[in-house]
């Protein structure tokens, strides 16, 4: 008991020094080299791969079709549909999911696909924003994301995004929660090994929103991140919190070059 208490009272300077060492050494050591970059798809079982690859058996197709219907539905006070401005999503939305989150000059920060859709809804359609994880939001992001399937995730060269990527990187390497874990300890240092019976993936967000068999539903990257944080016994960031977007941005940067699989299927 006393040992535990004295551990807690570890001199602050030592903790800070350890923090510095981690901050300077870890990123360089732990980063996954390009040649070893691996989508979670590579570790799926045969059946789950088949499920993702065939639109007619991929349950996420149900959301994609709803998204297509929404794309062509007039909404809000301006009585305009997405298609009235953007035309066919097959052309206009191609590659969008591969480069989001992106910098928004008006907001002086990154916005993710969900936020961009809601900006469009509130500012241009004059409609109510979709709620996070609502059926409509998932349908729309799945439909828009689907248009980038197969395209490599792009690295942003927007200078104003740099500090936000760095903020995301810092979160990725920061220990948090009651079991004092960082994202990097699993997904950089120990990918390919097992946590109980589950394989630890590299954690690349290639296929969001994706159909997770455990959820029996489609879910966003932010839902997945909250899941992880609950597992780490940390307080999860709220949906739409700037930390979530920074983390999304860093993860996309980290996955640059991998192909978009939206809508993917994962166990």
């Amino acid at each position, binding site marked *: 008991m006393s040992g535990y208490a004295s551990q807690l009272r570890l001199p602050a300077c030592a903790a800070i020094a350890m923090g510095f060492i981690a901050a300077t050494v870890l990123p360089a050591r732990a980063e996954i080299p390009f040649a070893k970059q691996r989508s979670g798809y590579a570790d799926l079982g045969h059946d789950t791969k088949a499920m993702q690859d065939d639109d*007619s*058996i991929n*349950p996420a*197709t*149900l959301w994609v079709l*709803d998204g297509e219907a929404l794309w062509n539905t007039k909404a809000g006070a301006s009585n305009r549909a997405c298609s009235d401005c953007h035309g066919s999503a097959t052309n206009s939305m191609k590659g969008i999911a591969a480069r989001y989150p992106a910098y928004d000059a008006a907001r002086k920060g990154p916005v993710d696909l969900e936020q961009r859709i809601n900006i469009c809804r509130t500012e241009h359609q004059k409609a109510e924003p979709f709620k996070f994880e609502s*059926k409509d939001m998932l349908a729309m992001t799945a439909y828009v994301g689907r248009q980038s399937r197969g395209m490599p995730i792009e690295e942003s060269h927007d200078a104003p995004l740099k500090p936000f990527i760095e903020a995301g990187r810092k979160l990725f390497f920061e220990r948090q929660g009651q079991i004092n874990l960082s994202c990097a300890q699993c997904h950089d240092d120990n990918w390919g090994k097992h946590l109980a019976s589950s394989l630890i993936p590299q954690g690349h967000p290639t296929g969001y929103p994706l159909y997770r*068999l455990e959820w*029996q*539903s489609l879910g966003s990257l932010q839902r997945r991140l909250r899941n992880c944080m609950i597992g780490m016994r940390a307080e999860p960031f709220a949906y739409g919190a700037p930390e979530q977007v920074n983390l999304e941005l860093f993860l996309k940067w980290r996955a640059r070059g991998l192909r978009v699989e939206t809508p993917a299927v994962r166990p």
Partner: protein
Amino acid sequence: MARALINVPKTAKRGQIIEIKTLISHIMETGFRRDNVGKLIPRNIITDLVCTYNGEEIFRAGLYPAIAANPFIAFFTVATESGTISFKWTGDNGFDETASAKIVVE
């Protein structure tokens, strides 16, 4: 928004064995789960899928609470004649969804 996806080959040779795949959007609430205040969430599942080929029943499935959300059901049949293959899902709370596909048999 219930929605069904069916996959039936558009054409087939007479006597050929064809695969039919169906996927339908449904929560398949088991009736055994409780909400955040401990109240039982009532069962809401699809109970039956019936498939007919030109009016004749060729496949029937009973579904139960252990079946996952958005049930995917695939089966095989023999392409006998050109016509329509129809599907009907029914379930709790008056759930009723239909879909059909045309097939040309040469």
